[in-house]
């Protein structure tokens, strides 16, 4: 199934979505508008003739001088029909994409990684925290305007010091707790 055939199958199912076939050398690529993404994905999964039951991966690419700047890329797989499909969503700086976690649970961490690396916000994601970088990291490393080599000052933490009284009080509290 090539991109026009999939668009023909999808268009009656999702109202008001303007799809666009993308150029590709391996398998069908479709550009999807961000506001119709979840409806499109649900149709792709639930229509028996398509049956895209696996979300293989979510990633993004930063095409910096271009506007909109990012493309979020979804790779889908239909095990029953031996079919692959690539969805692309164009996103500008500071704009967001709806999460597809409701359609495929595997999207959870994949979208978190995209947020971590590119700073693209996924609307409705229940747990959009940093995944690979430390919690207090600044910036999004995979962006093209993020420097390749940076120097950060070493961070040291004060060792935890507990006074003898506090330690004994803690033990006592624990003992009382266990006695109940």
């Amino acid at each position: 199934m090539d991109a026009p055939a999939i668009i023909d199958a999808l268009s009656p199912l999702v109202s008001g979505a303007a799809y666009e076939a993308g150029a590709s050398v391996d398998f069908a690529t479709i550009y999807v508008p961000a506001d119709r993404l979840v409806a499109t994905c649900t149709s792709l999964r639930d229509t028996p003739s398509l049956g895209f039951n696996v979300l293989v991966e979510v990633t993004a690419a930063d095409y910096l001088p271009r506007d909109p700047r990012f493309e979020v890329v979804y790779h889908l797989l239909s095990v029953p029909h031996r079919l692959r499909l690539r969805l692309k969503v164009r996103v500008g700086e500071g704009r967001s994409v709806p999460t597809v976690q409701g359609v495929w649970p595997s999207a959870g961490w994949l979208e978190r990684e995209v947020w971590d690396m590119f700073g693209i916000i996924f609307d409705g994601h229940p747990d959009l925290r940093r995944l690979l970088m430390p919690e207090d990291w600044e910036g999004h490393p995979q962006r093209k305007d993020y420097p390749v080599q940076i120097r950060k000052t070493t961070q040291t933490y004060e060792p935890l010091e507990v006074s003898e009284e506090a330690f004994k009080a803690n033990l006592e509290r624990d003992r009382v707790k266990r006695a109940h």
Partner: protein
Amino acid sequence: MAELRTETMTVNMGPQHPSTHGVLRLVLELDGEVVQSASPTIGYLHTGIEKTAEQKKWQQVIPLVERMDYLAAQSNSLAYALTVEKLLGLEMPQRVKDIRVLIAELQRLSSHLIWLGTHSMEIGAVSMLFYAIRERELLMNINELLAGFRFFPSYIRIGGLREDLPRGFHEAVNAFLDRFPKKLDEYEGLLTKNDIFLRRTEGVGVISQEDALAWGLLGPIARAAGSDYDVRKYFPYIGYETYDFNVPTATEGDVFARYRVRMQEMRESVRISRQAIKRITPSGVWACDDPRVVPPPKDKVYTEMEALIQHFLIYSQGFTVPAGDAYVPVEGPRGEHGTYIVSDGTNRPWRVKMRAPSFMAIQALPKLVQGGLIADVVAVIGSNDVVMGDCDR
């Protein structure tokens, strides 16, 4: 009698824990011995390989991606090389394809042996590790023969292979393939009907086929739950359609089913390797004939001006790849290993993204361990066969 007051206990497992296969941290909430919830924390091995790859020339990325999944190095580089070749539109000669099949299958054996050794050691069969490492040593020797490097040979290159097969390669591979099936029988004799092993693995960490696919666990985990999805059969690459082999499956979806599937997979890998080594001639063509990518032979470099210029170009500025993007999956030891590459038409990649099977396996871990015992967490992590280098990249 006074009502018993119970509360849950939070236990931190890892990052320094021998059974977390690298540095994985799990925060477990326990009710007695039963796991109420688990939340994995990853990123301790994040080295920014994808960002680094954007600064390298196309061919220089190969050693980098091999360090992602360090137990299945050549599965990474195969996926990467195939994707770049797809963008370049290169077709490999038959001999190169057969050698790549052989290398991919030996890599699968080598990775599965480490899985078998560590997984069974963690749940009590300590001696298994020594046997598995003993056989893996022979595979490491084959790597050393190929490229002089045991872990990360970087033997698969864009456009073919690094050089022709070394002398003694066929003898080494045949000796291994003759020895290995008997050893596999020994392993199975130690484990498959072992009462302790069965009690630790049967009915533990169960996942259904629908869930496995919805969580993206393509590979041995989905096959142990009843799916027959295998990239080698569904989307054949490097000529897998011409080999005679089966895709082992099971239906239970528990730790023991994953064990059985992987053990059968090793037997199938031996079968494919036997067919491949028969097809490979001891010497012959080892790269495609595209002068853009493959440097000219040395005797021509010393005698012909054009060859010298080509040699200089390839080694100084590298080659360019047409603009576009591609995703090519291969069946790695841990599941679908794919690379998504965007090229902007220059001599360096614009974006390289590895689809990491371990990443998906760790994401689904809470689902597999919830409601089970804390001792089973170790068995489930082992059976998911996660490599943190692959997960964090």
